[in-house]
């Protein structure tokens, strides 16, 4: 096993562990922290199924963002759904045989990368062009976009310009999953692409990418509007009450 392969094997295992464990801890923290008061942004659904629908609209259509700003919505939507298709297409490198629907969506997944890149560039442009967004942007906000743009461009480079040995790449990932590492091609485009993906996986649980789990735990979106019908009491508030009565 070459040095490069060895390095990427270690990186991918480490990044996967950090991503999974880091996210699990974060999600556990969100789930176990009580929301002591009913604070849905109203008008809000009055039933649990209504809340599921509200979150569905939020995650699938970016409903609130659409109300807010059509440009951010457009760029954000292009980026996220472009990326979703691209990621789904990438399943072919982790499954053998390739699932039929993944095979069928191959062309969509390929060209979705353009949407993803366009969305990212649009979002990035706003960080320079709109004075309000420029004001709130930290270096990490630019870096995050740079990282994603880098991943998109190197990936598109391999898809549309200089192909890598994709059979070998697939063998490498299947090997990782089966704990029997296989050699990785060493062309720079691929190594850059994978290196940046590793970086993204590592920063995910310690950065603003936490908005992904966060949206599901946002009390203003996930609470049922029924405070008069059903008494809502957090454990620490209940202890406060019983402490008073004693």
């Amino acid at each position: 096993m070459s040095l490069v392969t060895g390095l990427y094997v270690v990186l991918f295992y480490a990044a996967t562990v950090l991503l999974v464990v880091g996210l699990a801890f974060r999600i556990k923290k969100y789930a176990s922290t009580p929301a002591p008061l009913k604070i849905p942004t109203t008008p809000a659904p009055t039933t649990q199924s209504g809340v599921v629908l509200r979150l569905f609209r939020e995650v699938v259509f970016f409903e609130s963002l659409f109300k807010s700003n059509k440009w951010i919505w457009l760029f954000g939507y292009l980026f996220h759904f472009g990326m979703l298709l691209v990621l789904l297409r990438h399943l072919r490198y982790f499954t053998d045989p390739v699932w039929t629907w993944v095979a069928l969506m191959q062309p969509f997944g390929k060209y979705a990368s353009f949407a993803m890149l366009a969305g990212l560039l649009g979002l990035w442009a706003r960080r320079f062009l709109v004075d309000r967004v420029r004001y709130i942007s930290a270096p990490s906000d630019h870096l995050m976009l740079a990282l994603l743009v880098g991943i998109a461009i190197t990936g598109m480079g391999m898809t549309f310009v200089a192909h890598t040995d994709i059979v070998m790449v697939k063998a490498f990932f299947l090997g990782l999953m089966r704990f029997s590492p296989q050699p990785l091609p060493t062309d720079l485009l691929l190594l850059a692409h994978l290196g940046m993906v590793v970086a993204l996986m590592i920063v995910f649980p310690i950065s603003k990418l936490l908005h992904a789990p966060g949206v599901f735990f946002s009390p203003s979106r996930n609470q049922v509007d029924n405070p008069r019908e059903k008494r809502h009491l957090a454990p620490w508030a209940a202890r406060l009450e019983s402490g008073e009565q004693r």
Partner: protein
Amino acid sequence: MADFEVPVLREYPIIPKLKEGTMAHSSPFVAKPIIQEPLGFPGELLDNWKEVAIEKMGELCGKYRSLQVYLDSCVKCGACTDKCHYYLGTTDPKNMPVARQDLLRKVYRRYFTFAGKYFPKLVGAADLTEEVLDDWYSYFHQCSQCRRCSVFCPYGIDTAEISMAAREIMDAVGKGQKYCNEIIGKVYKIGNNLGLPEPALRDTLEGIEEDVEDDTGVKVRYPLDVKGADVLLVTPSADFFAEPHVDGLIGYGKVFHEAGISWTFSSKASEAANFGMFIGSYENMRRVSMRIREAALELGVKRIVFGECGHAWRVAYSFLNTLAGPFDFLDPRYPVPQHICEVTNGLIKEGKLKFDKSLNDDMKLTFHDSCNVARASRMGDKPGGQFVIPREIIKSCCNYFYDMPADTIHESTYCCGGGGGLLTDDLMELRVKGAMPRMQALKTVVEEHGVTNLVAICAICKSQFAKTLPYYGFDMNSIVSLHQLVSNAIILSDAPKDDDENDDDGDDA
């Protein structure tokens, strides 16, 4: 008129270019020890305030999921940046919701996140310093907790939650706001925000009874501490004498009178507002709420109804059951609590109230959705009832009603500019500038429909508009209470008949 520049109303609303530091000088009076201590807060800034603040921040992140998730989740997309009325009115970038949150978030990142601990510059994390604390004090008292930003945030991040946490942290280190904390103290000591003691209250209500009798010829009662009444009415104390609030209170009494519902005020719970929410203090909010439960038990009422008050209705509707429940000792056929608008509209639908709409024909009306009613509560049994029910009441008793532009009402309504514990004279510049977006929307309907009056169902909105309308060239008296319109137009069936015009109720047999 003002020692600051009043924003200009334009042909069309615009998103202004930002100007740094325009409101850095704005901050309310700091509470003195004598105000702080009864609430359980340190009298003045602690020597070890930094440690205490960081510790409090950690504690709050563990107690409030909202705070924890909101501090982590913001991606700085910019969706909220043009949504705050204080940003639109002041152009200070720290009044953009995300930038306001970042004042707290940068400290959270520095002390509680990996990236902020090791790469502070990269992620915009910062140490907690005196300058940061001053910024907190200034800008977390430039947020009226109106939740408009939370409507537009893709993750529902609510700056109100962040502001409440920041204020709670500041209280914990001994830097409290005089206005809010003094008022909470008055509620504990006397029973209401204005410090009206029981005899004064009784006097005021007797005066109102006389006035109403003079005016209508009907002995409408405004009872206080009547045991065994069906309804306990809890209303903001401004309703007892401020204009136009008191005209609304007169309306409540007429509604109960005409419907034959026995009701009472309580001198113990003579205040609907709960300033505990403004300072983010669950304990104080609970203590203030418990007065209402105790009053209901002592008076033996069957229902609790709240008067026109925005933030009060949020605490009542969304939190009262949590803070002071369960209310299993009340009549289960009615929601606990009810809004006076729910009661009035219900009676209208049952045909128990009759109006002569022409009595409001001197006014062309528009309705200001109060922020906390619109975005933090509900009326009726359907989502959005808080928009429908007040408008139905207005249309039942007025002939001329016109809504302001769609992006300034309902869930997108603008705060009046004085909510969330900012209705104090030491923040007048902020209040005037923060009222600008609502004034801009009002201007539209004034020009298009000749609207003469703005209706509100919140004590803060009413006081704030009475003060700020003149800065924009409107008459201070153009703000009216919703139940003032009810009061104007209601036909009291036991009124002495001085002519035959109103005699169509068939009671002349």
